[in-house]
């Protein structure tokens, strides 16, 4: 693994945050930020890492002067940008600072761009508000920066609207907007989290390239240790509003001093697949054959061009094993999961669950078979009814299949203990639990039905790495105890490597590779699989053991 090993001791200091504290306005709770110190030199990339709620984004918003008024207040500290304390500037002066001296790119480029304005005009707007250039000169600069961010066919994209561009192109537009005035400091708040791995890789390379060209200092906020390994010069680790450790990237990854940093690194799932379980000739519990799903808008007078979401999808899972479906967004992996659950109706194909084909059953005929196959969703905040107690959610399904109420409540208590929650959680509401706990509850609800197959649709993608590791561990234990088969849908190769026995790789609605996890990840056959693995950030580093991955 090649780290950035540049030294910045002699470079000019661009940003120097000293003892910055931020609190909830009027609140007496612990501060949101507690004496944060960060220094960034010219040309340096500083990564701010930490789990959700650690204060990473608040730090960046404080620098931008964008803290929610009346909600968050800076209680003490200095934010020094090239000798000027930003906290002393008034509204107008701060606005002059933004875009000229500091600029920012966000996680979701679709919402950060104006949907009804051509992107070229949006970049020009930045010039309009900060410079006085003749129109021709303006256009020239916009086209120039668009070329620098490697947008293809600049003339066409200049006149395009955001929805006509891909996610990666939109993020390039955002970067172009941020860098057109050549600011000293670029703040990037999870800029690649919403992108697919291959696109993420390109955007990271672009940021590095432009930084070297312009000598911009970059404050990069991320939760992804892989990205850190790829891009950082210096890493600051945040926890509960405090910087608990900072060091050059290689030092931090090799010799973390704080216990918390060690745990954070150890929680990063390894790309080396775990050994597959024994195939002891058990029965097939789910068999999908020739599944096809076409979305077409039926209209009265016209037929829109049909979209092929899944085609020729065939696989089967046997008891006690885990099959992963990996692919980027739009590859059709979620469509397959939803077809199998019959949340949407497949266009063609067979889905045999407990040796019954459920692909064509009507809603009523389907109900007795639902029990055999259960699902856990991605978003733990929306998958439980906020008005229901945990108990109500857990017994709902059991009552549907004739369990008596007292029996169902008793079993729900046992299930909660099985997933590692106290039994008194039954009487509480979802908002009283954290994301990871809610995901455990969702798992308990699914296994309450004693299913043969559990479909996990990006079930750990919304969780912090340490929580992610715990939930994966839980799934593993449950599988061991109950012999459940798991269909695990994910975009994250690291997660797939940790939990799957077999992996299916999907692209454009088709299966391009299907083999054991070890074969797919270590000896990929298809070009697309290879590209996916190439793009996985930090793939040469063994985070959990603080050293390079040894070639297998």
């Amino acid at each position, binding site marked *: 693994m090649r780290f950035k090993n540049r030294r910045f001791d002699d470079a000019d200091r661009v940003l120097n945050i000293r003892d910055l504290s931020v609190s909830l306005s009027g609140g007496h709770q612990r501060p949101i930020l507690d004496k944060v110190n960060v220094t960034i030199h010219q040309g340096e990339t500083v990564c701010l890492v930490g789990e959700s709620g650690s204060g990473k984004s608040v730090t960046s918003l404080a620098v931008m002067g964008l803290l929610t008024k009346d909600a968050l207040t800076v209680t003490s500290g200095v934010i020094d940008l090239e000798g000027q304390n930003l906290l002393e500037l008034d509204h107008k002066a701060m606005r002059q600072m933004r875009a000229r001296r500091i600029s920012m790119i966000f996680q979701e480029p679709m919402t950060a761009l104006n949907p009804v304005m051509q992107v070229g005009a949006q970049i020009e707007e930045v010039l309009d508000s900060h410079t006085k250039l003749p129109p021709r000169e303006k256009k020239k600069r916009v086209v120039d920066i668009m070329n620098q961010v490697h947008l293809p066919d600049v003339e066409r994209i200049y006149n395009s609207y955001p929805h006509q561009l891909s996610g990666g192109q939109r993020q390039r537009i955002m970067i172009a907007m941020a860098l057109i005035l050549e600011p000293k400091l670029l703040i990037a708040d999870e800029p690649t989290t919403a992108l697919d791995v291959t696109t993420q890789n390109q955007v990271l390379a672009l940021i590095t390239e432009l930084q070297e060209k312009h000598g911009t200092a970059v404050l990069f906020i991320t939760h992804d240790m892989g990205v850190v390994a790829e891009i950082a010069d210096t890493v600051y680790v945040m926890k509960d509003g405090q910087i608990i450790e900072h060091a050059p990237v290689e030092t931090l990854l090799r010799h973390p001093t704080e216990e918390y940093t060690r745990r954070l690194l150890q929680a990063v799932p390894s790309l080396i697949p775990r050994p597959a379980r024994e195939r002891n000739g058990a029965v097939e519990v789910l068999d999908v054959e020739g599944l096809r799903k076409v979305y077409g808008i039926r209209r009265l007078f016209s037929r829109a061009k049909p979209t092929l979401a899944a085609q020729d999808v065939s696989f089967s899972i046997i008891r006690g094993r885990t099959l992963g479906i990996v692919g980027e967004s739009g590859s059709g992996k979620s469509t397959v999961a939803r077809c199998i659950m019959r949340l949407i109706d497949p266009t063609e194909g067979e889905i045999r669950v407990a040796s019954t084909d459920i692909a064509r059953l009507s809603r009523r005929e389907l109900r007795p078979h*639902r029990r055999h196959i*259960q*699902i856990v969703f991605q978003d733990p905040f929306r998958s439980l009814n906020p008005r229901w107690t945990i108990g109500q*959610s857990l017994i*709902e399904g059991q009552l549907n299949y004739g369990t008596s109420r007292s029996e169902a409540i008793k079993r729900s208590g046992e299930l909660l203990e099985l997933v590692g929650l106290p039994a008194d959680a039954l009487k509480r509401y979802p*908002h009283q639990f954290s994301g990871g706990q809610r995901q455990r509850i969702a798992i308990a*609800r699914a296994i309450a039905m004693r299913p043969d197959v559990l479909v996990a649709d990006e079930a750990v993608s919304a969780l912090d790495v340490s929580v992610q590791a715990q939930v994966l561990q839980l799934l593993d234990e449950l599988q061991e105890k109950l012999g459940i088969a798991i269909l695990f849908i994910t975009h994250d190769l690291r997660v797939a490597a940790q939990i799957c026995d077999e992996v299916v790789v999907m692209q454009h609605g088709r299966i391009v590779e299907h083999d054991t996890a070890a074969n797919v990840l270590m000896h990929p056959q298809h070009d697309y699989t290879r590209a996916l693995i190439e793009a996985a950030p930090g793939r040469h580093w063994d985070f959990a053991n603080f050293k390079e991955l040894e070639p297998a």
Partner: protein
Amino acid sequence: MAAAPQPTSSLQFILGAVAVPRHWQLGIGPIIAAIVLAIIVVATLFAPLYVPHDPLSMDAVQRLKGPSSEYWLGTDAYGRDLFSRVMIGGQVSLFIGVGAAIVSVFIGLLIGLVSGFFRIADAIIMRIMDSLMAIPSILLAIALVALNGPSLWSVIFAITIPEIPRVVRLVRAVVLSAREEPYVEAAIAVGSSMPKILWKHLMPNTLAPLIVQGTYICASAILTEAILSFLGAGVSTEIPTWGNIMAEGRIYFQIKPSLIFWPGLMLSLCILSINLLGDTARDLLDPRLKKREG
């Protein structure tokens, strides 16, 4: 991350989590409105206990008298006591208002739930609703009263029907967005039946907007009743309502404007305060719609 809904009291539970903010910031307006409305409701409900005269008893000698200690607001063309008539008349007006609101919200809720969840039903139901909305509601109400005769129930029916499409649209919109929630899909996955999902998972989401809509319907129903009576298409003239009293006073407006003034004042105060409370409820239940201050 979006703020998680936090039902902490039973009220919050019913109205739906996000609904009730922790601190109720009420201005002076809603408080006055609540007091005015409370006085009107109590005064009309208990009117039979204290009104000095039978609102129906005529006295030819006492025609069109001005206010006196015997007749507080004077008398009408048949010598009936105006004060007694206005207070008693409020009963019917309020009953029609509240009745129409409850009936249209309930029926609209049922239709809206079905329409929001079942595609095929939706296509048919919404076309019917569209055609109902295309007809001006007063015109439709007059036609319905003409068909069924001028009884109290037929007036409620006539006012309710034109209000239903608005409720249906509202409920349908809420259901359409809520049915995509993973917790609803999870309920489908654990084999809950459609009626159960509709009633237990989706219906509670509609309560908060329905309460707001209900207050508006109540106010507009009271007004519609008055208009119908004024046009002679309302409750039969023997029963005093604010609309009836005004309709009869219309002829004498030149010589005795108080015959229209007093029932009109009650009507306006009542509708104004209901609407104000409705706005307040909306601001509290759905802060997104609240006008930004400052």
